[in-house]
């Protein structure tokens, strides 16, 4: 029986999890860390120093020269540093013509009668938003930072990361807004866009929600603070185990790695707490090698977000109400009802 699609996905809640976080420059540069190096949040992992601007001067055409006259005309060679006002090329004559460096810089090329100057410097840096160890160097671009700790994986993130103290907030209470500054705020239920904006405006470091309103997706992607949904979009109820876990993390320092999900690479946004803590570790047993008996969270309506135990894995594929044949799992839900769910429509809750 093919269980691959479920088995390859990491569990939602992991007490001992190795977070891999690539930190990369948008344009090639040079990595500034080495393999195995310990880094803190905010450390520079790679940087690219680019000329702030270029000037290409076509000596041949601008000075109307013959090719044979070119060599005598160009006064600087490729690689030479130049100061503002330095003569780069000169055409002698009754009234001499000059091409002077418009700023401090360097002659980077002299080819085909054209002189290219690079002036000024602009530095682009890639900083790690999480503390950890350099686990892999990405040549010319950055590194993969790894950190071990507790992780609760989400479904959707807006691509941002921040750290702060976890605050459990009741929705709709104006008085709560005073507490949110620099906090990672958790809100249960489907949170309205206006409430999320209000939290952002009041200085929250990041926002964690059970579910999001799908009609606001485009606006949510534009949030400048990290935003992560545990279940995804639409009506859904967060399971008790996830709630208890969040309660355990209340008032402790967490990192909201609200990176964008890539389901094909099993990359998900996550709420992360570096270092294994006693109170989270004891919640979970050792990883199981079989799916039977494990707690699964269900995708799709009408059970979206609810959990149950896998009690049976029939060998044969079954036809669902839609007509599609699929390998299924028999699930015993918390209310003791038994349902049959395609394997692809469930996620293993804990490791």
């Amino acid at each position: 029986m093919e269980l691959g699609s479920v088995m390859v996905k990491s569990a939602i809640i992991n007490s001992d999890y190795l977070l891999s976080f690539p930190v990369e420059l948008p344009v090639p540069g040079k990595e500034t860390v080495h393999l195995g190096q310990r880094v803190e949040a905010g450390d520079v992992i790679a940087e690219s120093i680019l000329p702030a601007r270029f000037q290409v001067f076509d000596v041949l055409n601008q000075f109307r020269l013959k090719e044979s006259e070119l060599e005598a005309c160009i006064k600087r060679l490729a690689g030479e540093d130049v100061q503002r006002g330095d003569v780069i090329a000169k055409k002698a004559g009754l009234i001499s013509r000059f091409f002077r460096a418009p700023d401090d810089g360097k002659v980077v090329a002299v080819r085909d009668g054209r002189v290219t100057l690079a002036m000024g410097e602009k530095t682009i840096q890639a900083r790690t938003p999480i503390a950890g160890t350099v686990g892999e160097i990405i040549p010319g671009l950055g590194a993969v930072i790894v950190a071990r700790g507790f992780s609760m994986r989400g479904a959707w993130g807006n691509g941002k990361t921040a750290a702060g103290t976890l605050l459990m907030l009741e929705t709709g209470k104006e008085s709560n807004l005073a507490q949110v500054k620099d906090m990672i705020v958790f809100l249960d239920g489907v949170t309205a866009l206006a409430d999320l904006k209000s939290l952002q405006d009041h200085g929250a470091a990041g926002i964690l929600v059970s579910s999001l309103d799908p009609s606001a997706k485009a606006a949510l992607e534009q949030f400048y603070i990290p935003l992560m949904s545990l279940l995804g979009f639409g009506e859904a109820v967060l399971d008790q185990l996830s709630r208890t876990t969040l309660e355990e993390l209340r008032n402790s320092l967490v990192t909201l790695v609200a990176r964008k999900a890539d389901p094909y690479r099993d990359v998900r946004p996550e709420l992360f707490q570096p270092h294994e803590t006693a109170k989270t570790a004891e919640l979970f047993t050792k990883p199981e090698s079989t799916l039977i008996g494990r707690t699964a969270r269900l995708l799709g309506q009408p059970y979206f977000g609810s959990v149950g135990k896998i009690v049976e894995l029939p060998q044969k594929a079954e036809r669902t109400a839609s007509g599609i044949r699929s390998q299924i799992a028999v699930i015993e839900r918390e209310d003791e009802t038994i349902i049959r769910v395609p394997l692809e429509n469930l996620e293993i809750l804990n490791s």
Partner: protein
Amino acid sequence: MTSSYLSIDISSQNTRGWLFDDQSGSFEMIAHTSAPTVLGSDQGLITAIDKVSRELETKTGMNLLSSARRFQVETDRNIPGLRGVGLTMSIGKPIRVVLVGISEKYSLEPLRRLARFYNTEIVLEISLQNEPNISVQLEKLTSTAFDLLILAGGVDGGPEKALRAVISNLRLLVQLRGGASRPQIVYIGNQSLADYAKMEIEAGEDLHIGGNIQPESGREDLSFASKALLAAICRLRLKEFPELQELSEQPNVNLLPGEFARARIDHWLEQTQTNNKGVLQIHLEPDHAHAVAIRDGKRMGVWQNCRVDEETVTEVLVQSDQPIERATVAAYLANRELHPGFVPVSIEEMSMEIAWMGVRIQRLLSEMAALYDDFHYDGRFGLMGDFEPILLSGSNFERLSSARYSFMVAQDGILPHGITTLVGDDYNVITPLGALAEFDSLLVTQIVDSDVFSGLATVINVDSPVAAGQKVLQLEVDEGYGEAREHYQVYQAELKRFETVPGNALRVYLAPEPESDVGMGLRGLGGWLNASVSDLGLVVDARGRPCFLPVDEHARQEVRRDWLWNLGA
């Protein structure tokens, strides 16, 4: 001696393997298998390749992959064994592309067509006519993150000054980037500057020189750039998945993008058929869609990555045949992106899934029409050109529960005109054939002839200006049982199906009304038509272009359900 060929296709969700041999005297597909593709670990793709190879070994008893993970290719033709391996990929991040050309119309437009065939994202375009400032060009190039640059050099012997300046800039860019993160550069066009570009840029194997895509004034042939672009794309993919490097360097192993392999077979099909029509292929995967249209030897194609926006939600809602709230559709589509393997379970979910697939095809073909003037498609009026067969492939089609769903998705998405045949590539065999074609030309011919494709339906699309409910066509159906012939009428806004019985093709006389066009060349012109045996048989689509649909939402959904019902429960 028996010759065997192995092909492995890696897509985001599944890795598939096929084994062909000619033991029976002609080539046959003797086994196929699939395994989930696992990314995120160093050996991810190798694990999937290993798994499908082992499964094929178990099924056939052949040795395909050694313990050192080398394909067991037998080069001695006197010994039976594996002669070649095709490795295709439809996986990886979109390749960020910069296009540089002399003019918008004659350089950038063809370059867009060239690049968009593959999984690319155009991040910068420089028209040398609009941006003659060399300094600004250089600044744009150095501050843009990209993987591939395609430079069109214009006509042979054409203007050189601006091009030489760009080439000098590229030299500088290559030096600034350094070896490890150097982009791939493809130079096409003006052949008098090709050697200059090679010497000046000094990018070694990262520079690829192609022919001129406009060999004569007014004639465009993108195939002249194919080889160079293909080489650049393969290098980029091997950089992204270095674990494949060793396998791909083995002799008789052919690495290709899956979309290129498919187009190669579509091209071959178009060349070998005698109906003077084009070939269209729609390939749907959870994360992307790809269309290839071949017409008069010209290849058109476009890759589209999946995206869900508010417009998608509206379109899916309009095309769904169930009463579903907008919020439900929005949540389903948003979550579907996050869980591409999700199986629609309920009738409502299936309705949204089917509607979404149709919408994706419409968007794909609209994008192709925007790129190619010769491809006439409009989301409301459908596909104007003659294409037969229309091939349907990819895991989205593969997992649909019945032929009528595949038919409705394709028919609603494409809205073809005239007479055509819809064909399902159930084993997704077009991709491996494209990858193996150059090893043995008989392989493709014999596999295609071996009924490996499943006929979905022969479709007569009736185009008539009359109102809904009026007669548009009369059919005389000869089911092959002696003299008896059945007569049927088809009315505007109807979808009617005539089953075929295995082993017995339908012979049908079409007698259209004077104002009806059934694809026989003129309005009112009819004639005999043979409909081969297929899953659905012969379908007459007189739903109109655009389809006649009630304004009322519930009535519209009911009509859609009726159409599906007419295809058989």
